[in-house]
């Protein structure tokens, strides 16, 4: 904090020194420092504000820090909750990826299917997922099947739209090369359509996993009978365990971050050609 003050008040003569320091710090270090500073300053402001104006039960950064080991090691409901919630998310995502891929690629390659499926895909994408939950529970009951169904409902449309866009934008050169060497339909679908649209698929995966996490928590809240992490957070908060609720929330966030950022990072590292999406 002190350095920020110094900077604004520093006389013009101090600038050459700063320029040298800037050059020495790599952009990466700078970025990381900026992020740490941003997080720390918010935490400090938070702690101070609650201390000045807040009530006793409100969560504070220090309280959360104390609650972390408490929740991770002493709360018997957290890990079963994590398991229940994320097994639904991962199963739902697995089904959605396969279904979205098949629907989207087929739509991208077969104009008739694109015309006939577009209203459904776009319509389901636009439907607020929370609004279909009453119907789903009516069909499937108040249980994890309904949660699973909502996750699939939330995650299939973005996957399908991404795969559709990807399949539409396969460079015709790739298809021409495949055809000129006598590739059969299967070779084109698996050998070309999927790798050529991988950047689109990843973008779709990112959107879909975000929606899947939102769906699972919404479903747990509204169904209310499960033991998942979402409903656990709700119960902790309602019983004034706000620090603990936030720790549980952070577990959700971490998994969300991994799905949104981590998966793409792994794929980028695993496939060095990934950045090359257009023919050379």
């Amino acid at each position, binding site marked *: 904090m002190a350095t920020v003050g110094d900077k604004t008040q520093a006389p013009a003569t101090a600038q050459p020194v700063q320029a040298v320091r800037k050059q020495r710090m790599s952009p990466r270090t700078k970025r990381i420092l900026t992020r740490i500073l941003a997080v720390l300053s918010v935490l400090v402001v938070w702690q101070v504000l609650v201390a000045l104006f807040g009530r006793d039960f409100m969560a504070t950064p220090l309280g959360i820090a104390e609650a972390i080991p408490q929740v991770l090691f002493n709360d018997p409901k957290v890990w079963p909750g994590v398991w229940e919630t994320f097994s639904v998310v991962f199963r739902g995502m697995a089904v959605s990826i396969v279904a979205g891929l098949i629907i989207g690629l087929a739509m991208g390659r077969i104009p008739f299917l694109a015309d006939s499926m577009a209203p459904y895909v776009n319509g389901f994408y636009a439907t607020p997922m929370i609004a279909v939950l009453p119907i789903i529970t009516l069909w499937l009951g108040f249980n994890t099947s309904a949660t699973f169904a909502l996750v699939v409902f939330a995650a299939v449309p973005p996957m399908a739209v991404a795969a559709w866009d990807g399949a539409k934008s396969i460079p015709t050169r790739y298809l021409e*090369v*495949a055809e000129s060497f006598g590739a059969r339909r299967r070779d084109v679908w698996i050998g070309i359509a999927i790798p050529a649209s991988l950047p689109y698929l990843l973008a779709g995966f990112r959107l879909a996993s975000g929606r899947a996490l939102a769906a699972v928590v919404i479903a747990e809240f509204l169904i209310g009978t499960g033991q998942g992490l979402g409903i656990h957070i709700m119960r902790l908060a309602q019983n004034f365990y706000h620090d603990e609720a936030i720790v549980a929330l952070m577990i959700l966030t971490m998994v969300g971050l991994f799905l949104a950022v981590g998966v793409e990072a792994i794929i980028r590292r695993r496939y060095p*050609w990934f950045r*090359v999406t257009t023919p050379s």
Partner: protein
Amino acid sequence: MSQVATEHRSGATPDHQGIVVQGLTKYYGDHCVFKDISFEIGPTEIVSVVGPSGCGKTTLLRCLNGLIHADEGSVLVDGDLVSKPRPEIAIVFQDFGLFPWKTALDNVAYGLTVRGTPKKKARETARDFVKLVALDGFEERYPHQLSGGMQQRAGLARALAVEPRVLLMDEPFGALDAQTRELMQFELLQIWDRNPAAMLFVTHGIEEAVLMGDRVIVLGGRPSGIHEVVDVPLPRPRDAATVASPEFQNLRSQVWDLVMTVRRNTAGADEE
């Protein structure tokens, strides 16, 4: 022209008849790309095609492969009508057409795997062709890690690996820098001397057309047609010394004059 073709064909075995094009005509909507094109390429002959931009060189090449269907006329390879891409015809593309998600070796093996060769066997064969085009040591690189010249070596190896009887070259060196292009021309000639096949060589480069071809077809007019066929009786194997010979220079300027005449007669063709 037919006389020349017969002469070149005479050495062929009955099932290696090269390629015979008869009365080929192609429309895009009402626009006639080319009309009534006929020529032959013997089984061990190279025919170059030059002409102004937009004269349908590339479309013609795609018709020969069966990627595009002509509206009239026929293409025969070894006596069989070509209606869809066939294993004995391979294309080398101007922009290489390599798959960025495959290594150089897997790109070279592509034609073989697509034809059902087991992956291991295909990679073994591909290795030989990687050596043939002097790309060994770069088998595991991805296309974006290779220079333009190396990428086209891979593109050439991929086409050669399926051991085609007909090679269709679509301005194969057009995207390369001048030095690499020259180098690749001579290497292609050497490779061809060892594994001769019928080759159609579409190019913008007049010198390149004369250097590669046994004949040079000059396309032009509206709609496009064969304006002239120039015989190139230069001895093979051809190399850098060929280019320096006065015969080569004479032929080059002869083709140059023809192309310039065609350009004047096809005013506006460049704008397409």
